[in-house]
């Protein structure tokens, strides 16, 4: 019998610190599998951000630079300009990318920086304990929106990937989700496409991945997935937002 799957060499075989039901572990593995399948681990540099995924340097078995909150796209820019032959990607959550790091991510797209962005959106700050994020849905409860997010007080959720797709330097933008084997496979394809476009020297690309935070949402993992699909996804529809073909 042929072996169809095994633990990727691009991941370190250690227990992850993520909560039960968290989708970071799945997304880490997808990124690692794509890099292994493309046989580019020897020239990959990941850029860790700040949030739950800041310790991804413990799990990825290739070079990683750890940046500050929101600054991963700028750090990626520095690495990529020095090593244009490398695959350089940032791994950022919504608290990092959609709040403190808006300037860095927008301008990386504006410059057409040849990097890939893995943007994990669960609509909440996970690492710091469930505070409201710019991506938090209206009426959604968080520790800093204990009565539910008031749009009168804090405005509306930010649609980052749509905003990035508007920039001419962005060649590919897609939103996926982690909810089933089918959507996991779709997400993997999107990551692969982003990495292939970068290796081909095309430009900036982003894969936004809707995910869950059972701990801070106060739900069971399965319930979280259902809630994500019924709520988060209605505000952030999954699908292709900008395809390479649209780029002139």
């Amino acid at each position, binding site marked *: 019998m042929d072996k169809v799957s095994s633990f990727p060499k691009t991941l370190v075989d250690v227990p992850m610190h993520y909560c039960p039901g968290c989708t970071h572990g799945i997304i880490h593995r997808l990124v690692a599998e794509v890099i292994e399948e493309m046989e580019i681990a020897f020239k990959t540099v990941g850029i860790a951000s700040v949030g739950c995924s800041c310790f991804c340097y413990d799990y990825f078995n*290739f070079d*990683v630079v750890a940046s500050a909150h929101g*600054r991963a796209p700028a*750090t990626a*820019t*520095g*690495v990529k300009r*020095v090593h244009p032959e490398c695959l350089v990607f940032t791994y950022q959550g919504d608290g990092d990318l959609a709040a403190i790091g808006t*300037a*860095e991510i927008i301008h990386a797209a504006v410059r057409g920086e040849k990097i890939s962005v893995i943007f994990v959106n669960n609509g909440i700050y996970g690492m710091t304990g469930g505070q409201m994020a710019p991506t938090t849905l209206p009426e959604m409860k968080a520790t800093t929106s204990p009565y539910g997010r008031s749009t009168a007080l804090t405005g509306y959720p930010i649609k980052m990937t749509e905003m990035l797709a508007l920039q001419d330097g962005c060649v590919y933008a897609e939103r996926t989700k982690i909810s089933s084997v089918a959507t996991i496979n779709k997400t993997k394809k999107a990551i692969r496409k982003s990495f292939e476009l970068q290796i081909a020297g095309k430009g900036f690309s982003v894969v936004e991945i809707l995910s869950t935070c059972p701990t801070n949402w106060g739900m069971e993992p399965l319930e979280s997935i259902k809630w994500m699909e019924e709520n988060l996804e209605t505000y952030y529809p999954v699908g292709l937002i900008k395809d390479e073909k649209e780029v002139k």
Partner: protein
Amino acid sequence: MTTKVLMKGSEAIAEAAILSGCRYFFGYPITPQNEIPEYLAKHLPKVGGTFLQAESEISAIYMVLGGAAAGARVMTSSSSPGISLKQEGISYMAGAETPCVIVNIMRGGPGLGAIQGAQPDYWQATRGGGHGDYRLLVLAPATVQEAVDLTYQAFDLADKYRNPVMILGDGILAQIMEPVELPEANNQLPDKAWAVGKNENRPRNIVSSSYPKVDELEKVSIRLHERYAQIKKNEVRWDSYLTDDAEYVIASYGSAARIAKAAIKMARAEGIKVGLIRPISVWPFPTEPFQNIVPQTKFFLSFEMCTGQMIDDVRLAIGNERPVYHYGRLGGVIPLPEELLAKIKELVKEAK
């Protein structure tokens, strides 16, 4: 015979960086240092380098972090308010042990302040500036030639100690034109086995200032502290002027020290035995020359273009042995030698 060229301070700093092997510059416009990025935008592409204007000082310093983590010689430059914005990244770079050169062309503050040259950021430069228990190696040139020499050396020092190095200048130094002798291009850059990039024949490299385990972070802090001790031992630089028979000693650095020299000449013409100790490395601070001159000295006068910051280091060096006074103008007003002379005469009269 060596050839000298007439260069503006800021452009000379930029050229010295290129000659030292710097091929990447990330910055954001701010007066009075714009000639540094402008020069590099023009000249870096000619040597295969990259000049990139960032969307903010914050972004620029993290591009520097990325470039430095990738093993390149990288520089950024800014002026006081912009350096404040860079402090987060400078702290990260100190923690991640990534070498780089940061040029700070100081101007009057606080806040937006004014664009004229001043020296109000000595504390920020010498005490770390950002959060955390770290130090920068800080070099303060007084002439365009010294700015060239120190910038050229700064890249070697940054690589040697794997630590950011700051060139602390001011608007006067950046704008003044003087003849300079340029060093030869450095073609021997050090190997950086710790840097990220292509990694076929080695285990993965991680460049990070994140150490979530406290005992691990304590070990890192001790290692950094030991490195700072080495810097203190090896890299103290200073100059002196007419101190052999001096009874009164002025402490001054950078452009202010040039004004001090002029005032000293005038005082000497009147028979007042005054001399100058000029720290070139303001961190590490040259404590010994101050301590050694105490026996012959009646008082020290710290002459700075601020309300008095380096005066703290003079006092730390000599303790309560002698009085330490301060004189300076603020907000970008350039003090005249005559003003300093008047202050010297006033203090000499009081001391008698």
